[in-house]
């Protein structure tokens, strides 16, 4: 994937941090909404972006790669200039100001998270919930070795609370979900984030895409 120069960038476009993890799945969902996803690997890729998605994956790996090439500083800089950021799963950990038992990473949301809070892969699960701010319909939620948001500070709006933990929050500049909307057929969270970034996603896309399957991401990496 060769990102084109900013000057030739057609709108609308959102960035997806492309250091490790579920990058293609987010790019795939953005495409459903008529938004071009730009894989972000270096500080230059961030310039002019209205929004950035931090995908699922391993937060320790992404955090290390963010630091060594200065992408973390560039993200903080663009965030201060108004770029919105959405973290899914590991991305939520990167955004948290406090990570239980570890040092924090970008630290842009006043909240405490616990990594891999449910146990092993055998404890990964799916659920359904209504998130009124995002959609009136029940949304499918996929939790894979998911973190929990344990508590949030003032000014952090809780979008979804489940049993003993918080699953989704937002602030004016951020969105964080401990689950993976990009691993379901639902584009509701991607639409919500795009609108938050000031973009106009395609209006005539079904909220639950019947054309989605768990292999949809593979069309971006066919053997040539």
């Amino acid at each position, binding site marked *: 994937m060769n990102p084109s120069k900013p000057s030739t960038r057609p709108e609308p476009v959102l960035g997806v941090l*492309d*250091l*490790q*993890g*579920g*990058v*293609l*799945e987010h790019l795939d969902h953005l495409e459903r909404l008529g938004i071009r996803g730009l894989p972000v*690997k270096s500080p230059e890729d961030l310039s002019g972006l209205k929004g950035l998605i931090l995908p*699922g*994956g*391993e937060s*320790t*790996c992404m955090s*290390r*790669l963010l630091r*060594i*090439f200065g992408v973390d500083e560039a993200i903080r800089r663009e965030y201060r200039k108004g770029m919105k950021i959405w973290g899914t*799963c*590991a991305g939520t950990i990167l955004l948290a100001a406090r990570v239980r038992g570890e040092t924090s990473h970008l630290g842009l949301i006043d909240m405490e998270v616990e*990594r*891999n809070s449910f*146990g*092993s*892969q*055998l404890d*990964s*699960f*799916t659920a359904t919930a209504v998130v009124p701010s995002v959609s009136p319909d029940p949304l499918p939620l*996929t939790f*894979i*070795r998911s973190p929990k948001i344990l508590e949030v500070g003032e000014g952090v709006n809780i979008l979804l609370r489940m049993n003993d933990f918080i699953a989704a929050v937002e602030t004016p500049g951020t969105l964080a979900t401990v689950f*993976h909307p990009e*691993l379901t057929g639902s584009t509701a969270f991607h639409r919500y984030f795009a609108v938050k970034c000031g973009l106009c996603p395609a209006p005539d896309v079904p909220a639950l895409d019947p054309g989605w399957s*768990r*292999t949809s*991401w*593979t*069309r971006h*990496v*066919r*053997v040539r």
Partner: protein
Amino acid sequence: MDEKRYELNVQLAQMLKGGVIMDVTTVEQARIAEEAGAVAVMALERVPADIRAQGGVARMSEPGLIRQIKQSVSIPVMAKARIGHFVEAQLLETLKIDYIDESEVLTPADEECHIDKTKFSIPFVCGARNLAEALRRIAEGAAMIRTKGEAGTGNVVEAVRHMRTMNREIRQLLNMPLEEVTGFCKVNGMPYEQALKVRELGRLPVVNFAAGGLATPADAALMMQLGCDGVFVGSGIFKSSNPAVRARGIVKATAFFNDPEKILEASLGLGEAMPGLEIAQIPADKLLAGRGW
């Protein structure tokens, strides 16, 4: 395993894409791997290079060691079961690790049957030398595939051969008329339904990592440029002179596999790589990739 559980297991592998899975034999090594940016660790008693050198029967690692390693890191933990040894797999599932590698690096327990992976809730990764082997494992319930390569050699040539073979066979499958698919499947021992899926998708339906003989950042980037979704590094890290630095270099090169300047940066100052073995010098009965079918 119901379809929903299988989907979650395939999706965990998707979250490992672009990452490096490292073999570790102690808690200390597991911590080094995690700190270096590994996306998962493979908990083992002996790395493949030592298994190869010491000979004898290689079995599942001691459960206490696997449990200790699991408790010492927060990234996913994998462990190996012998091919066909479904009770070793039951133990690993009971230990609640995250992924089982049904691996040719261990001495096979069954020379006819691989494990029926559909009976488990825990996900499996399996090795393959070609497309048909990959699809047989997927048909048995594997949620992730890796090349077999030739483990413990520090020689990437077999992993390259296996990846190129899979890609070539996928291209063949894509380009033939439908009426030729049955014959192609018969000749290659390929499950027909799985072959049709590959024709639809233009690739394997699950994540496919490189494994077996990777020792340098350039090896990792090579396998990524050949189309692998991520890499396993077994003996290559903890058999090198400076494991922590080499581990970081391989993580960096895997993430930036298309950027020669960054791969160069990742390759500087790593110390000595593990000693390598010429495949032709290994007696045929000591080759691991031929185990399983």
